């Protein structure tokens, strides 16, 4: 499925409870205070649910930035 950064922004804002959050493809967890390991799991679950996809363990472990998520989504 083809998703863009604009599709992910509402999910990130919702899960991280920050309406003004801005993310770019190069954004990493280190850039955003609320993006801790706990919220990381909530993000995965929320993206999987919203877009009807399922990521593999290796895919999730391989993510370095938001762009990597989009790349894996495009393979589904």
């Amino acid at each position: 499925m083809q998703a863009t950064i604009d599709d992910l922004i509402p999910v990130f804002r919702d899960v991280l409870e920050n309406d003004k959050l801005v993310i770019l493809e190069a954004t990493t967890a280190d850039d955003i205070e609320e993006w801790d390991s706990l919220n990381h799991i909530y993000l995965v679950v929320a993206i999987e649910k919203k877009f009807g996809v399922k990521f593999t363990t290796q895919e999730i472990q391989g993510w370095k930035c938001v762009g990597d998520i989009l790349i894996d989504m495009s393979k589904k």
Partner: protein
Amino acid sequence: MKVVILGNYATQFFAKSLKNSFKLYGLSIELYTAEFNTTEYEILDENSQLYKFKPDYIVWHESTLGIRDAFYKTDTLLRSGFADSYLSRTMSLVSEVQKRLPSVKILFPNHSLTFNDNLFGNYFAKVESSWRFQVDKINYLLNVSSMTSNSFYVISSSPVDTLEPVTDYTQVANAELHFTLSYLTWMSEAIVKIVQSFSGKFTKCVVLDLDNTLWGGIIGDDGVEGIQLGSHGVGKSFVRFQKWLKELKNRGIILAVCSKNDDQIARIPFLEHPEMVLKMEDIAVFIANWQSKADNLAQIQKILNIGFDSIVFLDDNPAERDIVRKHIPGIIVPELPEDPSYYLPFLIKENIFETTSFSANDSERTRQYQEESKRMELSSSITNMDDFLNSLEMSATLTSFGRPDYERISQLTQRSNQFNLRTVRYTTSDIANIASDDSFLTLAVELSDKFGKYGLISVVIIKLSGTDAHIDTWIMSCRVLKRTVEHMAMNHVIDILHEKGIQTLYGEYLPTAKNKLVETLLEDLGMTEYENDKFIITTESYKKLKTYIKYAGDN
């Protein structure tokens, strides 16, 4: 409510979900989540956060997957004994907790069969050292331990039907999260319901519609031969549904009927239909007329004297359900499915009859309420209250707490919301401790009258210190309101205090949302308010109160 979560997986998600569920149900929660895999440390170290926190509840969630890993680490030759050693380790930890937190309740989900390993396929029952054999045994042994423990409650780890996966193995690998978030939400709601039940909020009565709820069709139109019950039409489902309702009644849930029907016609199936499981004697209050259901439900509530939030109303008609919901805040009205064959599976899944106690006394309840209906009829034919009370030929025994009654006494402290002076909740073990402590004066009152026995209906606990005494607990079942039971008990209390040389009795009313009924109790008992909601009386100045109950001794 203070809650601690112990577990052998990443429980932070469970913690978050539990907090949400408590909030959703309007309960306050203070939560401490122990670090991953620190259960033994928290329990064995007397200076641990667990003991500093002093929780009311411990939710001890051992992931079956984690235990399975421990099982594989066990030497093959020792695996047949795995369940036994798991149990002895678990129960010795439980008794450590009990030593330091005597009134805590430990909720322990049992082990889920979704973590079966199929190593022996379906041959597992022949191989004692198989994982599946040992898990089954662990669950059985956990039940046995729970049965005899006052603080250890084994709870179900499995929803009735699991359409959603219990585990997402990606999350196990990435975060040691052994359960899906939707499963943890289910578990959290189950725990909220258990906690509510412990604090006295649980279903006590089911009010049933008749046509298309207890049988198919309309009795007024179809006649007793025409309604669907038993082998006719969808009748089998109704029979199965009725059997379950009858079991509920046997467990102590009150059944009542509220139907738009002609009274005589509505009774015919109960009296004449051979496939009818529920009989008239199963129904505590039967109301069939053409008035609004909201009015009739109010009438039922008045007779039973219980809160609307402990009543469930079952009706196949969405419009009736809607009206009742709108007019009676708090009443529980499940959205029954359209297909009658799913009434029962739906109600089982909803688990709206959660309970945290069971005693033989519970199954007596319907008979007691039927007697109450008869008494109400009598009281409307007698206008003079003196005559009425005398005509009841009441007698009572007053005893200090005895072992066979501990469960029932504790239940009264858990269940009573209205006639409850201070609303202190006690577990069975608390009651045992109080009973054996000389600094408490305890009183259990059993009442009977010419219509039958009420059983244990009032409990009084007085704390003694020097020449003073304080009322700790004063509870009475609302079924015996206005019978002068409290007068008799007070006379008795003052007599005993006087004998012991105690001069002053103090009392205090602690208001809650539900106990307005006893706002003036202490004043009615002859005490004087010396400060807001605080009362006092000296045994010297006490004047005996009038009672219509004959003293039948101390048992």
